[in-house]
């Protein structure tokens, strides 16, 4: 009976094996996964393009150049898109790790963006303190938006999947109202907010690109989260609750309600930060489509990364490239951009299927008499 766990497994389960041989194997495995997923994504795309009768070659060229053809494409298209995907992906993975199915990153992101827009109104008074304030406002709003679902789950037993999806729609329509009402630009023509003050805009970290400070936020939060989950008692508690809440409560004497609530709020805060960052780093004004579904794509990002924060950073870049490429594909080859969400969904399903296959392999070796 071979008891050696497959490589995939090591990534999730042996985070704590500091400095050991397994660690390098885990890294290699992670790298292998990333490359394999990128390859699978391209294959899926080719199949879909061919099946739907597109000019596949032309579309692929547009995809690749759009995503990685130039320095500007890499930094300003791919990486800029990767930032909200990474932050929202971290939000989703944190929640999923705790056993909370937060499908509401989209709504929390919108709430964060809206709150940040309000915060920029204070820019003339605050000056350089505007950016910290708007980021904090984004976090608080995201956490509060998630907090509604957390409250409904903890106190009233409402399935968070449904409540967070409903809250996404409420957030969308609320933003729709805001940009036609209190926050609308001064001419009252377009459904979008005023442009935020220059001092409220996140600095660009590489000159002559659009890559802004949010990239650093994503990397720092990703690494911090990874370390916290593997090395800190609080992180272990969160993972234990996600792995088996009953056992966490009974055997670990962990306060499950407290742990899940904190995780839910933290998840919302990170998603809210994604929204604030997007506003302050990319769009400079609020409108309904400020997120083209980043909160949903983030679910794919998190799952493909097997909920590992470092993996989320890698997967976010992969998906950033995919979305940047898809954008170029629509522009240059007339391929509908939404095709990419088909690829993303198929990737999730493939990962699910692979997981089940692996579990089955483990079961086969069990002596269950």
């Amino acid at each position, binding site marked *: 009976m071979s008891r050696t766990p497959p490589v995939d497994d090591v990534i999730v389960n042996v985070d704590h094996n500091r400095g050991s041989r397994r660690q390098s194997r885990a890294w290699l495995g992670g790298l292998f996964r990333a490359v394999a997923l990128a390859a699978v994504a391209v294959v899926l795309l080719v199949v*879909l393009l061919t099946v*739907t*009768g597109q000019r596949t070659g032309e579309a692929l060229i547009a995809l690749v150049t759009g995503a990685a053809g130039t320095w500007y494409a890499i930094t300003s298209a791919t990486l800029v898109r990767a930032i909200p995907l990474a932050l929202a992906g971290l939000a989703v993975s944190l929640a999923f790790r705790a056993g909370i*199915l937060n*499908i509401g990153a989209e709504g929390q992101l919108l709430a964060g963006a809206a709150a940040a827009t309000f915060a920029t109104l204070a820019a003339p008074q605050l000056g350089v303190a505007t950016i910290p304030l708007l980021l904090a406002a984004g976090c608080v709003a995201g956490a509060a938006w998630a907090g*509604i679902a957390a409250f*409904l789950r903890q106190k*009233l*037993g*409402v*399935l968070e*999947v*449904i*409540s967070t*999806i*409903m*809250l996404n*729609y*409420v957030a969308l*329509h*609320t933003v*729709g*109202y805001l940009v*036609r*009402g209190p926050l609308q630009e001064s001419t009252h023509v377009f459904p979008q907010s005023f442009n935020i003050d220059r001092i409220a805009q996140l600095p660009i970290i590489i000159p002559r690109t659009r890559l802004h400070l949010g990239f650093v936020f994503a990397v720092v939060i990703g690494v911090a989260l990874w370390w916290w989950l593997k090395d800190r008692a609080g992180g272990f508690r969160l993972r234990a609750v996600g792995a088996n809440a009953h056992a966490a409560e009974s055997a670990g004497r962990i306060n499950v309600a407290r742990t899940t609530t904190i995780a839910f709020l933290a998840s919302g805060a990170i998603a809210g930060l994604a929204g604030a960052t997007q506003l302050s780093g990319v769009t400079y004004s609020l409108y309904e489509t400020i997120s083209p579904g980043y909160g*949903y794509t983030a*679910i*794919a990002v998190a*799952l493909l990364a097997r909920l590992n924060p470092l993996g989320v950073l890698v997967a976010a870049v992969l998906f950033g490239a995919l979305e940047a490429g898809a954008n170029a594909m629509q522009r240059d080859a*007339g391929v*509908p951009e*939404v*095709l*990419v*969400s*088909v*690829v*993303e*969904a*198929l990737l*999730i*399903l493939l990962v*699910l*299927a692979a*997981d*089940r296959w692996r579990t089955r392999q483990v079961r086969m070796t069990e002596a269950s008499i």
Partner: protein
Amino acid sequence: MIDAFLEATIRWSTPFALAALGECVSERAGVINIGLEGSIIAGALGATVGAGVFGPTFGFVAGALSGLVIAAFFGVFAVALRSDQIITGTAITMFSLGLTGTLYRLIYGASGVSLSTPTTGVLPLPVLSAIPVIGPALFIQPPITYALYVAIACVAWWMARTQSGLALRAVGERPDAATAAGINVRRVQFGAVLFAGAMAGLAGATLVLAQAGTFVENMSAGRGFIAIAIVVLGRWRPLGVAAASLLFGAAYTLQNLFQSLGLSNVPYNLFLAVPYVLTLIVLALFRSGTSSPAALGQREIVSR
């Protein structure tokens, strides 16, 4: 006024009730299908294409088939492979929204082109529609609404009075007990999922063929998720689900009513949010409690 309100309520309720009735069957078999939204949007596009080619009646058939195909996809992962139902359903919805968006643009050209689909008009039922107040509301409706009445009665009867209905309920409560009684759990669950998909497809077809008269990307607008909330509110019973659907039909009717009344000081975007807020309130007030199928969402057949 009142009968116009009732008539509109039933008209708006129809797609909710269709989808929720299907989901009710699926959940009684222990499968929560978040991919319902995907089946609805697929049904809407399928109906658009089908009706464009062969007319509205075939549009409904095509819609049901489209919803069924998406549900079959869900079933392969969630039932056959026993993947997590929630995550699978989320992925399926994403898949279907992306696929319908792509296909729509490919078939009907780039977005923005207005598309008109033949719709089914109302079919007043003689005698019945002459009943005061509720007569016109219930019996001057499109044919799909009458089909819904029949479906509700059939499902309610089937669950209570047939062995296969009994088996369905047992599967959702204690799949291991059902297995021991000689019931093929996965077959029952797959069948229930397919039924839910077809019903959701019909709901999508209704949106296009009996309401909007056109296809719009993302036109399902969360109705699949609302339908899941309706099942909770309806206590997993066909008649309860039908009654709960009326609440949401009424909410949509009121939303339209207020908009048309031109209460210009209240922006219409806030009205658009009403059904979703209502769903949250309903879920908060009506806790699932003990009436929820015991094995809902459970992956494994064996309970240890």
